[in-house]
Protein backbone atom coordinates (compact mmCIF):
# COMPACT_ATOMS: atom_id res chain seq x y z
CA UNK A 1 0.00 0.00 0.00
CA UNK A 2 1.11 3.52 -0.71
CA UNK A 3 0.72 6.69 1.26
CA UNK A 4 -1.80 9.09 -0.10
CA UNK A 5 -3.34 10.30 3.10
CA UNK A 6 -4.24 13.93 3.30
CA UNK A 7 -6.52 15.95 5.50
CA UNK A 8 -10.20 15.37 4.87
CA UNK A 9 -11.40 17.97 2.39
CA UNK A 10 -14.50 18.66 4.45
CA UNK A 11 -12.57 18.70 7.70
CA UNK A 12 -14.51 15.70 9.02
CA UNK A 13 -12.38 13.62 11.36
CA UNK A 14 -12.60 11.38 14.36
CA UNK A 15 -10.28 13.85 16.05
CA UNK A 16 -7.55 12.79 18.43
CA UNK A 17 -6.77 9.12 18.89
CA UNK A 18 -4.30 7.26 21.03
CA UNK A 19 -2.13 4.26 20.31
CA UNK A 20 -2.55 1.57 22.98
CA UNK A 21 -0.71 -1.64 23.74
CA UNK A 22 -1.81 -5.09 24.81
CA UNK A 23 0.68 -7.73 25.82
CA UNK A 24 0.05 -11.46 26.06
CA UNK A 25 1.93 -14.76 25.86
CA UNK A 26 4.31 -13.77 28.62
CA UNK A 27 6.84 -16.58 29.01
CA UNK A 28 6.57 -19.35 29.89
CA UNK A 29 3.17 -19.14 28.17
CA UNK A 30 4.43 -18.38 24.71
CA UNK A 31 2.44 -18.09 21.51
CA UNK A 32 3.05 -21.15 19.38
CA UNK A 33 3.37 -20.11 15.75
CA UNK A 34 2.25 -22.01 12.67
CA UNK A 35 5.87 -22.51 11.69
CA UNK A 36 6.43 -24.36 14.97
CA UNK A 37 8.43 -21.67 16.80
CA UNK A 38 7.40 -20.09 20.07
CA UNK A 39 7.14 -16.37 20.62
CA UNK A 40 6.59 -14.40 23.79
CA UNK A 41 5.80 -11.97 25.08
CA UNK A 42 3.74 -10.57 22.22
CA UNK A 43 2.71 -6.93 22.28
CA UNK A 44 0.00 -5.63 19.97
CA UNK A 45 -0.27 -1.93 19.19
CA UNK A 46 -3.85 -0.93 18.49
CA UNK A 47 -6.22 1.98 18.24
CA UNK A 48 -9.96 2.20 18.65
CA UNK A 49 -12.39 4.78 17.35
CA UNK A 50 -16.05 5.17 18.29
CA UNK A 51 -17.93 3.54 21.14
CA UNK A 52 -18.60 -0.12 21.75
CA UNK A 53 -22.36 -0.45 22.32
CA UNK A 54 -23.91 -2.20 25.31
CA UNK A 55 -24.57 -5.41 23.33
CA UNK A 56 -20.96 -5.31 22.07
CA UNK A 57 -22.33 -5.93 18.59
CA UNK A 58 -21.02 -2.94 16.62
CA UNK A 59 -17.29 -3.70 16.47
CA UNK A 60 -15.49 -3.58 13.13
CA UNK A 61 -11.91 -4.76 12.80
CA UNK A 62 -9.91 -2.97 10.11
CA UNK A 63 -6.85 -4.88 8.88
CA UNK A 64 -3.97 -2.96 7.38
CA UNK A 65 -1.72 -3.93 4.49
CA UNK A 66 2.06 -4.39 4.16
CA UNK A 67 3.31 -1.05 5.36
CA UNK A 68 0.32 0.18 7.36
CA UNK A 69 -0.15 0.50 11.07
CA UNK A 70 -2.78 0.77 13.79
CA UNK A 71 -3.31 4.46 12.99
CA UNK A 72 -6.39 4.01 10.84
CA UNK A 73 -7.99 7.43 11.33
CA UNK A 74 -7.72 10.70 13.19
CA UNK A 75 -4.67 12.44 14.64
CA UNK A 76 -2.29 11.80 17.51
CA UNK A 77 -1.79 15.51 18.13
CA UNK A 78 -3.56 18.60 16.77
CA UNK A 79 -0.40 19.47 14.80
CA UNK A 80 -0.04 16.16 12.93
CA UNK A 81 0.62 16.85 9.25
CA UNK A 82 -1.43 13.79 8.26
CA UNK A 83 -4.28 11.72 9.67
CA UNK A 84 -4.42 7.90 9.85
CA UNK A 85 -4.03 5.85 6.67
CA UNK A 86 -7.77 5.21 6.02
CA UNK A 87 -9.14 8.49 7.35
CA UNK A 88 -11.02 8.89 4.05
CA UNK A 89 -13.19 5.90 4.90
CA UNK A 90 -13.27 5.85 8.69
CA UNK A 91 -14.87 8.68 10.64
CA UNK A 92 -18.13 10.35 11.59
CA UNK A 93 -20.60 9.94 8.72
CA UNK A 94 -18.00 8.22 6.53
CA UNK A 95 -18.23 4.78 4.89
CA UNK A 96 -17.35 3.21 8.25
CA UNK A 97 -19.33 5.58 10.41
CA UNK A 98 -17.66 5.97 13.79
CA UNK A 99 -20.88 7.47 15.17
CA UNK A 100 -22.36 4.00 14.80
CA UNK A 101 -19.51 1.54 14.82
CA UNK A 102 -16.66 0.76 17.16
CA UNK A 103 -13.58 0.49 14.96
CA UNK A 104 -10.49 -1.46 16.01
CA UNK A 105 -7.23 -1.47 14.06
CA UNK A 106 -4.08 -3.21 15.23
CA UNK A 107 -0.57 -3.37 13.88
CA UNK A 108 0.19 -6.83 12.46
CA UNK A 109 2.58 -9.33 14.03
CA UNK A 110 6.07 -8.96 12.52
CA UNK A 111 5.61 -5.28 11.71
CA UNK A 112 7.50 -2.39 13.27
CA UNK A 113 4.81 0.07 14.31
CA UNK A 114 4.45 -0.98 17.93
CA UNK A 115 3.59 -4.67 17.60
CA UNK A 116 6.24 -7.29 18.27
CA UNK A 117 8.46 -7.85 15.23
CA UNK A 118 12.08 -8.40 14.23
CA UNK A 119 13.08 -4.96 15.52
CA UNK A 120 11.67 -5.70 18.98
CA UNK A 121 13.93 -6.71 21.84
CA UNK A 122 14.40 -10.44 22.18
CA UNK A 123 14.03 -11.12 25.93
CA UNK A 124 16.46 -14.03 25.62
CA UNK A 125 19.36 -11.80 24.46
CA UNK A 126 18.34 -8.29 25.42
CA UNK A 127 18.96 -7.23 21.82
CA UNK A 128 16.70 -6.86 18.77
CA UNK A 129 15.54 -10.17 17.33
CA UNK A 130 16.76 -9.57 13.79
CA UNK A 131 16.53 -12.86 11.93
CA UNK A 132 16.05 -14.75 15.22
CA UNK A 133 12.49 -13.56 14.97
CA UNK A 134 10.44 -16.56 13.83
CA UNK A 135 8.76 -16.49 10.43
CA UNK A 136 5.11 -15.61 11.00
CA UNK A 137 2.07 -16.28 8.82
CA UNK A 138 -1.14 -14.42 8.06
CA UNK A 139 -2.73 -17.05 10.33
CA UNK A 140 -0.41 -16.02 13.18
CA UNK A 141 -1.26 -12.36 12.64
CA UNK A 142 -4.95 -13.15 12.87
CA UNK A 143 -4.52 -15.35 15.93
CA UNK A 144 -2.76 -12.46 17.63
CA UNK A 145 -5.60 -10.13 16.61
CA UNK A 146 -8.06 -12.59 18.10
CA UNK A 147 -6.30 -12.31 21.45
CA UNK A 148 -6.77 -8.56 21.25
CA UNK A 149 -10.46 -8.90 20.35
CA UNK A 150 -10.89 -11.27 23.32
CA UNK A 151 -9.15 -8.73 25.52
CA UNK A 152 -11.55 -6.01 24.34
CA UNK A 153 -14.47 -8.23 25.36
CA UNK A 154 -15.86 -8.61 21.85
CA UNK A 155 -17.41 -11.99 21.20
CA UNK A 156 -18.51 -11.43 17.65
CA UNK A 157 -17.26 -8.81 15.21
CA UNK A 158 -19.86 -7.06 13.10
CA UNK A 159 -17.32 -6.95 10.28
CA UNK A 160 -13.70 -7.50 9.38
CA UNK A 161 -12.49 -5.33 6.52
CA UNK A 162 -9.19 -4.71 4.77
CA UNK A 163 -7.41 -4.41 1.44
CA UNK A 164 -4.45 -6.28 -0.04
CA UNK A 165 -2.62 -8.14 2.78
CA UNK A 166 -5.36 -6.70 5.00
CA UNK A 167 -7.84 -8.56 2.79
CA UNK A 168 -5.92 -11.79 3.38
CA UNK A 169 -6.43 -11.29 7.11
CA UNK A 170 -10.15 -10.77 6.45
CA UNK A 171 -10.34 -14.12 4.64
CA UNK A 172 -8.31 -15.77 7.37
CA UNK A 173 -10.68 -14.44 10.04
CA UNK A 174 -13.72 -15.70 8.14
CA UNK A 175 -12.27 -19.21 7.83
CA UNK A 176 -10.42 -19.54 11.12
CA UNK A 177 -13.08 -18.00 13.37
CA UNK A 178 -16.32 -18.39 11.42
CA UNK A 179 -18.52 -17.90 14.47
CA UNK A 180 -16.90 -14.63 15.39
CA UNK A 181 -17.36 -12.73 12.12
CA UNK A 182 -20.77 -11.58 10.90
CA UNK A 183 -19.50 -9.88 7.77
CA UNK A 184 -16.25 -10.03 5.84
CA UNK A 185 -15.13 -7.39 3.34
CA UNK A 186 -11.95 -8.41 1.49
CA UNK A 187 -10.82 -5.63 -0.87
CA UNK A 188 -8.29 -5.87 -3.71
CA UNK A 189 -6.94 -9.15 -2.43
CA UNK A 190 -6.35 -12.79 -3.29
CA UNK A 191 -6.78 -16.22 -1.79
CA UNK A 192 -3.12 -16.88 -2.57
CA UNK A 193 -0.26 -15.14 -4.32
CA UNK A 194 0.33 -15.75 -7.99
CA UNK A 195 3.86 -16.41 -9.23
CA UNK A 196 3.88 -12.78 -10.40
CA UNK A 197 3.16 -11.47 -6.89
CA UNK A 198 5.76 -13.78 -5.31
CA UNK A 199 8.29 -12.72 -7.94
CA UNK A 200 7.93 -9.02 -7.14
CA UNK A 201 8.23 -9.75 -3.42
CA UNK A 202 11.35 -11.80 -4.02
CA UNK A 203 12.99 -9.02 -6.02
CA UNK A 204 12.19 -6.62 -3.19
CA UNK A 205 13.62 -8.97 -0.55
CA UNK A 206 16.75 -9.55 -2.62
CA UNK A 207 17.27 -5.81 -2.87
CA UNK A 208 17.24 -5.60 0.94
CA UNK A 209 19.45 -8.61 1.50
CA UNK A 210 21.94 -7.49 -1.15
CA UNK A 211 22.53 -4.22 0.72
CA UNK A 212 25.87 -4.57 2.58
CA UNK A 213 24.33 -2.65 5.49
CA UNK A 214 21.75 -5.40 5.98
CA UNK A 215 24.41 -7.64 7.59
CA UNK A 216 22.28 -10.74 7.91
CA UNK A 217 19.56 -8.71 9.57
CA UNK A 218 21.76 -7.50 12.47
CA UNK A 219 21.94 -3.85 11.60
CA UNK A 220 20.13 -2.32 14.54
CA UNK A 221 23.28 -0.96 16.15
CA UNK A 222 24.55 0.70 12.96
CA UNK A 223 23.53 1.97 9.55
CA UNK A 224 20.20 0.68 8.22
CA UNK A 225 20.03 -1.09 4.83
CA UNK A 226 18.49 2.07 3.48
CA UNK A 227 19.35 1.62 -0.20
CA UNK A 228 18.04 -1.92 -0.27
CA UNK A 229 14.81 -1.05 1.46
CA UNK A 230 14.30 1.94 -0.83
CA UNK A 231 14.66 -0.26 -3.92
CA UNK A 232 12.26 -2.79 -2.36
CA UNK A 233 9.74 -0.02 -1.90
CA UNK A 234 10.24 1.17 -5.49
CA UNK A 235 9.40 -2.30 -6.75
CA UNK A 236 6.32 -2.31 -4.57
CA UNK A 237 5.16 1.03 -5.90
CA UNK A 238 5.31 -0.20 -9.47
CA UNK A 239 2.98 -3.05 -8.58
CA UNK A 240 0.58 -0.74 -6.73
CA UNK A 241 0.04 1.47 -9.78
CA UNK A 242 -1.07 0.51 -13.26
CA UNK A 243 -0.04 1.14 -16.82
CA UNK A 244 -2.84 3.69 -17.15
CA UNK A 245 -2.09 5.40 -13.86
CA UNK A 246 1.60 5.70 -14.69
CA UNK A 247 0.87 7.04 -18.14
CA UNK A 248 -1.45 9.63 -16.66
CA UNK A 249 0.77 10.55 -13.70
CA UNK A 250 4.15 10.58 -15.43
CA UNK A 251 4.09 9.57 -19.06
CA UNK A 252 7.62 10.13 -20.35
CA UNK A 253 7.82 13.60 -18.86
CA UNK A 254 11.23 14.72 -17.70
CA UNK A 255 11.99 15.93 -14.19
CA UNK A 256 13.11 19.58 -14.04
CA UNK A 257 14.87 19.46 -17.39
CA UNK A 258 14.14 19.84 -21.05
CA UNK A 259 16.48 17.20 -22.43
CA UNK A 260 18.18 13.98 -21.36
CA UNK A 261 21.15 14.37 -19.03
CA UNK A 262 23.18 11.60 -20.67
CA UNK A 263 24.19 10.30 -17.27
CA UNK A 264 22.47 8.21 -14.59
CA UNK A 265 20.85 10.99 -12.61
CA UNK A 266 17.11 11.31 -12.58
CA UNK A 267 15.77 12.07 -16.05
CA UNK A 268 12.17 10.96 -15.97
CA UNK A 269 9.49 12.02 -13.54
CA UNK A 270 8.68 8.41 -12.78
CA UNK A 271 12.27 7.89 -11.62
CA UNK A 272 12.05 10.87 -9.35
CA UNK A 273 8.75 9.65 -7.93
CA UNK A 274 10.07 6.19 -7.16
CA UNK A 275 13.25 7.51 -5.57
CA UNK A 276 11.25 9.85 -3.40
CA UNK A 277 8.87 7.08 -2.30
CA UNK A 278 11.82 4.80 -1.55
CA UNK A 279 13.68 7.36 0.54
CA UNK A 280 10.58 8.40 2.45
CA UNK A 281 9.75 4.79 3.29
CA UNK A 282 13.17 4.12 4.80
CA UNK A 283 12.55 6.76 7.45
CA UNK A 284 9.59 4.94 8.89
CA UNK A 285 9.87 1.25 8.10
CA UNK A 286 12.12 -1.58 9.21
CA UNK A 287 13.77 -3.62 6.46
CA UNK A 288 13.46 -6.91 8.34
CA UNK A 289 9.75 -6.34 8.90
CA UNK A 290 9.43 -5.93 5.14
CA UNK A 291 11.07 -9.35 4.68
CA UNK A 292 8.82 -11.03 7.24
CA UNK A 293 5.53 -9.56 6.09
CA UNK A 294 6.13 -10.20 2.39
CA UNK A 295 7.05 -13.78 3.25
CA UNK A 296 3.82 -14.20 5.21
CA UNK A 297 1.87 -12.91 2.21
CA UNK A 298 3.67 -15.32 -0.13
CA UNK A 299 2.93 -18.27 2.16
CA UNK A 300 -0.75 -17.37 2.47
CA UNK A 301 -2.81 -20.00 0.68
CA UNK A 302 -6.41 -20.59 1.64
CA UNK A 303 -6.67 -23.57 -0.62
CA UNK A 304 -3.98 -25.56 1.15
CA UNK A 305 -4.18 -24.07 4.63
CA UNK A 306 -7.94 -24.36 5.02
CA UNK A 307 -9.22 -26.62 2.28
CA UNK A 308 -6.73 -29.49 1.92
CA UNK A 309 -6.15 -28.51 -1.69
CA UNK A 310 -9.62 -27.21 -2.47
CA UNK A 311 -10.76 -23.59 -2.28
CA UNK A 312 -14.38 -24.76 -2.26
CA UNK A 313 -13.69 -26.97 0.75
CA UNK A 314 -11.88 -24.09 2.46
CA UNK A 315 -14.95 -21.85 2.27
CA UNK A 316 -17.22 -24.60 3.56
CA UNK A 317 -16.22 -23.41 7.04
CA UNK A 318 -17.24 -19.80 6.46
CA UNK A 319 -20.41 -18.37 7.97
CA UNK A 320 -19.97 -14.66 7.31
CA UNK A 321 -21.74 -12.55 4.72
CA UNK A 322 -19.14 -11.46 2.18
CA UNK A 323 -18.62 -8.33 0.14
CA UNK A 324 -15.73 -8.90 -2.26
CA UNK A 325 -14.40 -5.91 -4.20
CA UNK A 326 -11.78 -5.77 -6.94
CA UNK A 327 -10.53 -2.96 -9.18
CA UNK A 328 -10.27 -3.16 -12.95
CA UNK A 329 -6.67 -1.92 -13.19
CA UNK A 330 -5.25 -3.95 -10.26
CA UNK A 331 -2.59 -6.10 -11.87
CA UNK A 332 -1.10 -7.30 -8.58
CA UNK A 333 -4.35 -9.06 -7.59
CA UNK A 334 -6.40 -8.96 -10.79
CA UNK A 335 -10.17 -9.38 -10.76
CA UNK A 336 -10.00 -13.04 -11.79
CA UNK A 337 -8.46 -13.78 -8.39
CA UNK A 338 -11.42 -12.20 -6.61
CA UNK A 339 -13.78 -14.11 -8.88
CA UNK A 340 -12.01 -17.34 -7.90
CA UNK A 341 -12.92 -16.85 -4.28
CA UNK A 342 -16.43 -15.66 -5.12
CA UNK A 343 -16.90 -18.85 -7.11
CA UNK A 344 -15.92 -20.98 -4.11
CA UNK A 345 -18.29 -18.99 -1.89
CA UNK A 346 -21.14 -19.52 -4.36
CA UNK A 347 -20.52 -23.25 -4.46
CA UNK A 348 -20.96 -23.20 -0.68
CA UNK A 349 -24.24 -21.28 -0.89
CA UNK A 350 -22.72 -18.39 1.05
CA UNK A 351 -24.23 -14.92 1.13
CA UNK A 352 -21.78 -13.13 -1.15
CA UNK A 353 -21.78 -9.87 -3.04
CA UNK A 354 -19.11 -8.98 -5.55
CA UNK A 355 -18.33 -5.74 -7.35
CA UNK A 356 -15.52 -4.91 -9.75
CA UNK A 357 -14.98 -1.17 -9.55
CA UNK A 358 -13.78 0.59 -12.66
CA UNK A 359 -10.69 2.49 -11.57
CA UNK A 360 -7.50 3.28 -13.43
CA UNK A 361 -5.26 3.74 -10.40
CA UNK A 362 -4.25 0.11 -9.92
CA UNK A 363 -4.00 -1.95 -6.75
CA UNK A 364 -3.88 1.14 -4.56
CA UNK A 365 -7.41 2.15 -5.52
CA UNK A 366 -8.76 1.06 -2.14
CA UNK A 367 -6.66 3.74 -0.44
CA UNK A 368 -7.75 6.55 -2.74
CA UNK A 369 -10.96 8.56 -2.65
CA UNK A 370 -13.60 6.43 -4.37
CA UNK A 371 -17.27 7.23 -4.05
CA UNK A 372 -18.29 3.81 -5.28
CA UNK A 373 -16.17 1.96 -2.74
CA UNK A 374 -17.42 4.19 0.07
CA UNK A 375 -21.05 3.57 -0.90
CA UNK A 376 -20.57 -0.20 -1.20
CA UNK A 377 -19.00 -0.42 2.25
CA UNK A 378 -21.57 1.89 3.84
CA UNK A 379 -24.58 0.12 2.30
CA UNK A 380 -23.29 -3.37 2.97
CA UNK A 381 -22.58 -2.56 6.62
CA UNK A 382 -26.04 -1.04 6.88
CA UNK A 383 -27.59 -4.33 5.77
CA UNK A 384 -25.51 -6.66 7.90
CA UNK A 385 -26.00 -4.54 10.99
CA UNK A 386 -29.75 -5.12 10.61
CA UNK A 387 -29.56 -8.82 9.81
CA UNK A 388 -28.64 -11.34 12.44
Amino acid sequence: MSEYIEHDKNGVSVGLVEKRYFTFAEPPECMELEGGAKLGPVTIAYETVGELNAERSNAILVCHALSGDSHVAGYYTPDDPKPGWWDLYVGPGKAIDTNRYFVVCSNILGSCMGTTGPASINPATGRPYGLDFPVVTIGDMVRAQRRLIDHLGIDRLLAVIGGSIGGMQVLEWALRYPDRVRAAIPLATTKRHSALAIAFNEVARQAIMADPDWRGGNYYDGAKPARGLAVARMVGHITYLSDEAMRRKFGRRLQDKSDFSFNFDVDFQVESYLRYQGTKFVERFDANSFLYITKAADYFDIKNQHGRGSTVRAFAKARARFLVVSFTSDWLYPTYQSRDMVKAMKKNNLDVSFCEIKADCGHDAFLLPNERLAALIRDFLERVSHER
Partner: protein
Amino acid sequence: MSGEETAAQTTAGLRFDLSVIAGWIRPGSKVLDLGCGNGELLSYLKEHKEVVATGIEVDEERVAACIHRGVPVIQGDLNEEIEDYPDKAFDYVILSRTLQQVYEPDRLIRNLLRIGRRAVVSFPNFGHIGCRLQLLLGGYAPKTAQLPYEWYNTPNIRIISIKDFHRFAREIGFTIEAEVAINTDSEDKRGRIVRLLPNLFATYGIFLIAPRTGNAATM
Protein backbone atom coordinates in the same frame (compact mmCIF):
# COMPACT_ATOMS: atom_id res chain seq x y z
CA MET B 1 -53.22 -19.41 -11.86
CA SER B 2 -55.88 -17.30 -10.25
CA GLY B 3 -53.77 -15.51 -7.70
CA GLU B 4 -51.85 -13.22 -9.99
CA GLU B 5 -54.42 -10.46 -10.21
CA THR B 6 -54.63 -10.26 -6.44
CA ALA B 7 -50.88 -10.34 -6.30
CA ALA B 8 -50.66 -7.57 -8.85
CA GLN B 9 -53.02 -5.44 -6.85
CA THR B 10 -51.09 -5.81 -3.62
CA THR B 11 -47.73 -4.95 -5.10
CA ALA B 12 -48.19 -1.24 -5.59
CA GLY B 13 -45.17 0.45 -7.09
CA LEU B 14 -43.66 -2.70 -8.51
CA ARG B 15 -43.49 -2.96 -12.31
CA PHE B 16 -46.52 -4.93 -13.52
CA ASP B 17 -44.67 -7.94 -14.93
CA LEU B 18 -42.58 -8.14 -11.76
CA SER B 19 -45.71 -8.09 -9.62
CA VAL B 20 -46.97 -11.12 -11.54
CA ILE B 21 -43.68 -12.90 -10.88
CA ALA B 22 -43.74 -11.87 -7.21
CA GLY B 23 -47.17 -13.48 -6.92
CA TRP B 24 -45.66 -16.85 -7.78
CA ILE B 25 -42.84 -16.81 -5.24
CA ARG B 26 -43.51 -18.67 -2.01
CA PRO B 27 -42.58 -16.82 1.19
CA GLY B 28 -39.27 -17.78 2.73
CA SER B 29 -37.88 -19.35 -0.43
CA LYS B 30 -34.43 -18.92 -1.94
CA VAL B 31 -34.42 -16.82 -5.09
CA LEU B 32 -31.80 -16.00 -7.74
CA ASP B 33 -32.56 -13.18 -10.17
CA LEU B 34 -30.42 -13.30 -13.31
CA GLY B 35 -29.92 -9.83 -14.71
CA CYS B 36 -31.49 -8.32 -11.62
CA GLY B 37 -30.95 -4.71 -12.68
CA ASN B 38 -31.17 -2.34 -9.73
CA GLY B 39 -32.66 -5.05 -7.51
CA GLU B 40 -36.26 -3.86 -7.61
CA LEU B 41 -37.86 -7.32 -7.60
CA LEU B 42 -35.44 -8.90 -5.12
CA SER B 43 -35.72 -6.07 -2.66
CA TYR B 44 -39.51 -6.35 -2.87
CA LEU B 45 -39.37 -10.11 -2.32
CA LYS B 46 -36.95 -9.71 0.58
CA GLU B 47 -39.18 -7.23 2.30
CA HIS B 48 -42.60 -8.75 1.61
CA LYS B 49 -41.88 -12.45 1.31
CA GLU B 50 -38.77 -12.81 3.41
CA VAL B 51 -36.96 -14.64 0.66
CA VAL B 52 -33.22 -15.28 0.69
CA ALA B 53 -32.25 -13.25 -2.36
CA THR B 54 -29.27 -13.07 -4.69
CA GLY B 55 -28.88 -11.23 -7.96
CA ILE B 56 -26.51 -11.41 -10.89
CA GLU B 57 -25.92 -8.14 -12.74
CA VAL B 58 -23.27 -7.14 -15.23
CA ASP B 59 -23.38 -3.37 -14.77
CA GLU B 60 -21.34 -1.82 -11.93
CA GLU B 61 -23.76 1.06 -11.37
CA ARG B 62 -26.71 -1.31 -10.99
CA VAL B 63 -24.69 -3.62 -8.76
CA ALA B 64 -24.11 -0.68 -6.44
CA ALA B 65 -27.85 0.10 -6.55
CA CYS B 66 -28.61 -3.47 -5.44
CA ILE B 67 -26.18 -3.23 -2.52
CA HIS B 68 -27.79 0.09 -1.64
CA ARG B 69 -31.16 -1.66 -1.43
CA GLY B 70 -29.68 -4.37 0.75
CA VAL B 71 -29.79 -7.02 -1.96
CA PRO B 72 -26.80 -9.39 -2.25
CA VAL B 73 -25.53 -9.29 -5.83
CA ILE B 74 -22.66 -10.62 -7.88
CA GLN B 75 -21.30 -8.56 -10.73
CA GLY B 76 -20.79 -10.73 -13.75
CA ASP B 77 -22.15 -12.29 -16.91
CA LEU B 78 -25.20 -14.40 -16.09
CA ASN B 79 -24.25 -17.12 -18.58
CA GLU B 80 -20.97 -17.66 -16.74
CA GLU B 81 -22.06 -16.95 -13.18
CA ILE B 82 -24.85 -19.52 -13.31
CA GLU B 83 -22.33 -22.31 -13.88
CA ASP B 84 -20.89 -22.05 -10.37
CA TYR B 85 -24.00 -22.85 -8.37
CA PRO B 86 -24.59 -26.37 -7.11
CA ASP B 87 -27.67 -28.31 -8.26
CA LYS B 88 -30.95 -27.20 -6.68
CA ALA B 89 -29.28 -24.26 -4.94
CA PHE B 90 -32.44 -22.14 -5.32
CA ASP B 91 -36.18 -22.59 -5.08
CA TYR B 92 -36.67 -20.12 -7.93
CA VAL B 93 -34.35 -18.78 -10.59
CA ILE B 94 -35.75 -15.74 -12.38
CA LEU B 95 -34.82 -14.71 -15.90
CA SER B 96 -36.88 -11.61 -16.53
CA ARG B 97 -36.89 -9.99 -19.99
CA THR B 98 -33.50 -11.42 -20.81
CA LEU B 99 -34.04 -14.64 -22.77
CA GLN B 100 -34.26 -12.67 -26.02
CA GLN B 101 -30.71 -11.39 -25.43
CA VAL B 102 -29.07 -14.71 -24.67
CA TYR B 103 -26.64 -16.36 -27.08
CA GLU B 104 -27.39 -19.94 -26.05
CA PRO B 105 -30.95 -19.99 -24.67
CA ASP B 106 -31.25 -23.78 -24.54
CA ARG B 107 -28.08 -24.14 -22.52
CA LEU B 108 -29.15 -21.36 -20.18
CA ILE B 109 -32.62 -22.81 -19.60
CA ARG B 110 -31.10 -26.19 -18.79
CA ASN B 111 -28.80 -24.49 -16.30
CA LEU B 112 -31.73 -22.58 -14.79
CA LEU B 113 -33.50 -25.86 -14.13
CA ARG B 114 -30.34 -27.46 -12.82
CA ILE B 115 -29.70 -24.88 -10.10
CA GLY B 116 -33.35 -24.07 -9.39
CA ARG B 117 -36.29 -26.24 -8.41
CA ARG B 118 -38.35 -23.88 -10.53
CA ALA B 119 -37.58 -21.07 -12.92
CA VAL B 120 -39.50 -17.99 -13.94
CA VAL B 121 -38.88 -16.84 -17.50
CA SER B 122 -40.38 -13.77 -19.13
CA PHE B 123 -39.76 -12.22 -22.53
CA PRO B 124 -41.29 -9.69 -24.93
CA ASN B 125 -43.70 -11.50 -27.21
CA PHE B 126 -42.64 -11.17 -30.82
CA GLY B 127 -45.93 -12.66 -31.90
CA HIS B 128 -47.73 -9.49 -30.80
CA ILE B 129 -49.99 -8.00 -33.43
CA GLY B 130 -47.96 -4.80 -33.51
CA CYS B 131 -44.84 -6.68 -34.58
CA ARG B 132 -46.74 -8.72 -37.10
CA LEU B 133 -48.34 -5.70 -38.73
CA GLN B 134 -45.14 -3.74 -38.95
CA LEU B 135 -43.44 -6.55 -40.80
CA LEU B 136 -46.47 -7.39 -42.92
CA LEU B 137 -47.50 -3.88 -43.90
CA GLY B 138 -44.34 -1.87 -43.54
CA GLY B 139 -41.87 -4.55 -44.51
CA TYR B 140 -39.44 -3.35 -41.85
CA ALA B 141 -38.06 -5.19 -38.83
CA PRO B 142 -40.52 -4.37 -36.02
CA LYS B 143 -39.76 -1.65 -33.48
CA THR B 144 -42.07 -1.45 -30.47
CA ALA B 145 -42.20 -0.04 -26.94
CA GLN B 146 -40.98 -3.43 -25.72
CA LEU B 147 -38.38 -3.84 -28.47
CA PRO B 148 -37.34 -0.24 -29.12
CA TYR B 149 -34.15 -0.86 -31.12
CA GLU B 150 -33.13 -0.88 -34.75
CA TRP B 151 -32.11 -4.21 -36.20
CA TYR B 152 -28.47 -3.09 -36.25
CA ASN B 153 -28.17 -1.99 -32.63
CA THR B 154 -30.58 -4.22 -30.76
CA PRO B 155 -29.35 -6.37 -27.89
CA ASN B 156 -32.41 -8.54 -28.54
CA ILE B 157 -30.88 -11.14 -30.80
CA ARG B 158 -33.61 -13.78 -30.34
CA ILE B 159 -37.08 -13.49 -31.74
CA ILE B 160 -39.44 -15.42 -29.47
CA SER B 161 -43.20 -15.66 -29.40
CA ILE B 162 -45.35 -17.21 -26.71
CA LYS B 163 -46.07 -20.11 -29.07
CA ASP B 164 -42.34 -20.56 -29.67
CA PHE B 165 -41.81 -20.96 -25.95
CA HIS B 166 -44.43 -23.70 -25.75
CA ARG B 167 -42.69 -25.61 -28.51
CA PHE B 168 -39.35 -24.96 -26.80
CA ALA B 169 -40.74 -26.53 -23.61
CA ARG B 170 -41.70 -29.68 -25.47
CA GLU B 171 -38.37 -29.94 -27.26
CA ILE B 172 -36.14 -29.24 -24.28
CA GLY B 173 -38.40 -31.24 -22.01
CA PHE B 174 -39.55 -29.03 -19.16
CA THR B 175 -42.96 -28.49 -17.59
CA ILE B 176 -44.83 -25.21 -17.73
CA GLU B 177 -46.47 -25.00 -14.32
CA ALA B 178 -48.07 -21.63 -14.86
CA GLU B 179 -48.13 -18.95 -17.49
CA VAL B 180 -49.47 -15.45 -17.75
CA ALA B 181 -49.64 -13.28 -20.82
CA ILE B 182 -49.78 -9.57 -20.14
CA ASN B 183 -50.30 -6.35 -21.98
CA THR B 184 -48.53 -3.37 -20.51
CA ASP B 185 -48.53 0.37 -21.11
CA SER B 186 -45.50 1.99 -22.68
CA GLU B 187 -43.71 2.42 -19.34
CA ASP B 188 -44.74 -1.05 -18.19
CA LYS B 189 -45.86 0.32 -14.83
CA ARG B 190 -49.43 -0.85 -15.28
CA GLY B 191 -50.88 -3.65 -17.30
CA ARG B 192 -53.54 -6.28 -17.63
CA ILE B 193 -53.67 -10.00 -18.13
CA VAL B 194 -54.47 -11.17 -21.65
CA ARG B 195 -56.67 -14.25 -21.84
CA LEU B 196 -57.90 -13.99 -25.42
CA LEU B 197 -55.35 -14.99 -28.08
CA PRO B 198 -52.32 -14.19 -25.94
CA ASN B 199 -49.81 -14.82 -28.72
CA LEU B 200 -51.50 -12.07 -30.70
CA PHE B 201 -52.37 -9.54 -28.03
CA ALA B 202 -49.83 -9.92 -25.21
CA THR B 203 -46.69 -7.79 -25.06
CA TYR B 204 -45.01 -10.19 -22.62
CA GLY B 205 -45.21 -13.85 -21.77
CA ILE B 206 -44.32 -14.96 -18.25
CA PHE B 207 -43.78 -18.64 -17.46
CA LEU B 208 -43.21 -20.67 -14.33
CA ILE B 209 -41.32 -23.76 -15.40
CA ALA B 210 -39.89 -26.83 -13.71
CA PRO B 211 -37.85 -29.84 -14.74
CA ARG B 212 -40.12 -32.62 -15.95
CA THR B 213 -40.70 -34.94 -13.00
CA GLY B 214 -38.44 -37.94 -13.03
CA ASN B 215 -35.89 -36.66 -15.53
CA ALA B 216 -34.45 -33.83 -13.45
CA ALA B 217 -31.08 -35.53 -13.58
CA THR B 218 -30.94 -35.48 -17.34
CA MET B 219 -32.02 -31.87 -17.69
